C-alpha cells in the first residue's frame, strides 16, 4: 500500500483547549473537535513524515493502542478530515502552507 503524507491545510482555524483540539474549516465552517490521539496525529501532520511512521513512532509510543487498529483508525480519521479540506493528503511529501 502506498505511503500517505499528511499536512494541515492553511484554510483552517485551530486551538488546543484542555487536551482537545478545536478545528474549524474556514471554507465551509465545519467544526471538529479532536481527542488526544487525533490531536497528536494532527500536530504531527508536517507533510514530510509518512502517516504510518506517525502512528508507529508517535501514537503507539504515546498511547496504549494496538498498531494495526491505530493504523486503521488513523486512515479513517485522515479520510474524514481530508474530505473537508482540513488535512491535505498525498502519496508524496507535502509542504505545509501558511496563510
Amino acid at each position, binding site marked *: 500500500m502506498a505511503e500517505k503524507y499528511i499536512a494541515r491545510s492553511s484554510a483552517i*482555524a485551530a*486551538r488546543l483547549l*484542555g487536551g482537545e483540539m*478545536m478545528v474549524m474549516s474556514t471554507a465551509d465552517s465545519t*467544526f*471538529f473537535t479532536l481527542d488526544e490521539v487525533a490531536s497528536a496525529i494532527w500536530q504531527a501532520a508536517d507533510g514530510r513524515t509518512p502517516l504510518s511512521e506517525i502512528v508507529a513512532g508517535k501514537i503507539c509510543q504515546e498511547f496504549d493502542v494496538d498498531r494495526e487498529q491505530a493504523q486503521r483508525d488513523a486512515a479513517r480519521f485522515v479520510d474524514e478530515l481530508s474530505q473537508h479540506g482540513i488535512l491535505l493528503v498525498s502519496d508524496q511529501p507535502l509542504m505545509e502552507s501558511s*496563510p
Partner: protein
Amino acid sequence: MSLLAEMNQKALTLGLPISVHFDITYRCNERCVHCYLDHDDHGEMTTAEIADVLTQLADVGVFFLSLSGGEVLMRRDFFEIVERARQLLFNVKVKTNGVMIHEKEAARLRQLGVEQVQISVYSHRPQVHDAITKLPGSLKRTIRAIRFLKSQGLKVSIANVLMARNFSDQAGVITLARELGVAYTLDPTITPRMDGDTSILALRIPGSDVKHVFHSQELVGNMEEFCAPPPVPGEDIMEGFPCSAGHTACYISPYGDVFPCVQFPLPSGNVRRQKFLEIWRHSPQLQEVRSIRARDLPTCSTCAHVGTCTRCPGLAYVEGNMRGPSTADCEKSFQRTGIPSANMLAGAHGSTMGQLIQIQAAG
C-alpha cells in the same frame, strides 16, 4: 448540545477565554449618527504591539477573534494584522463597512482564510443609508464590496442596526441580502457614546416597533415559542450567569484596554502594562463580573423573565449598576411576551438614566 456549545462549556469550566472582540482602531471613514466611538486616534497600539497581544491570546486558548473598529481598513497594517492572526490559527471574523474593499482586498481576505465578514447596511436606499453614515455614495460602495467578497466565496453577513429613521427599510434590507446571497442580522440596540452622551439614545426605535420585530415570523422563526410567556425559573437559572462577558469572552480596545465586553465599559486592565493572562486571571473587575449569579441581581432575580431575558450586564453597568436591570432589555422582554418586567412594575421603566459611566483607560 452542539460541539461548539460543548467547547464553550469546557472553556468556562477551565476559566479560559475562547472569544475576543478586538477593535484595532476607532478611526473611521464614516460618521454614523448612532456611533458611540470617538474617532480621533489617541495612541493606537502599533503593529508589533498588536502582534504580541495576538500571540498572548493564542497562547491562552482564544479561538474566535473578531477584528473590528472603527473601520478596520483605516489601518495601513490591517492585512499584516490579519495575516499574523491567521498564522496563529485564529478563527477570524472581520467587521467592516466595506467602503474600502475592492477586488484586491476581497481576494486577500479570502487568501488569508478569514472565516466571515460582517458588513453594516442600514437601508437598501442610498438616501437613507448615506444619511446615516454621512458618507455620500457609501451604500453603493458597500454593496460593491459585498459582491467582491461573495465572488471570492467568502461568507458575508449584513448587520442592520435598527433606528427610528431606517425602521421602515428593514424589509428592503432583507430583500437586498437575499439578492446578494448573504445572511441578515438585525440589532435594535443603540448604546450611549463613550463620552457618556446619551443623546443618541433618542435614535432608538419605539417599543411598538420592537414588538413588530419580535412578532415577525420571518425574523424570529417560531414566533409562538419566541414570544411565549417565560417558564418559572429553576435553581439552575438562579445559579447561572448573565452572558459570556468576562467568563469566556472579552474586549480589547485599540489602546490596549481590556473590558469584559464591547458593550461593558468596565476598565479591567491594559495589555500595554500587563500580560493578558494576568489581567484575565487576576483583574478585580473581571473577578467581580464573574462572581455575579442571577440570584445576586436585586430586581432581576424577582422578575418573571429572569430565565429568558437578554439582559445585558454591560448596558446595566452603563445605567449605573452592573447588578441592576438593563431597561432596553426589560423593554424587549415586555414587547416579546406582553408581560412587564419586575423593573417596569417597580416603576423605574422610562425613567431617565442616572450618571453614565464612561470608557476610560484602566488605572
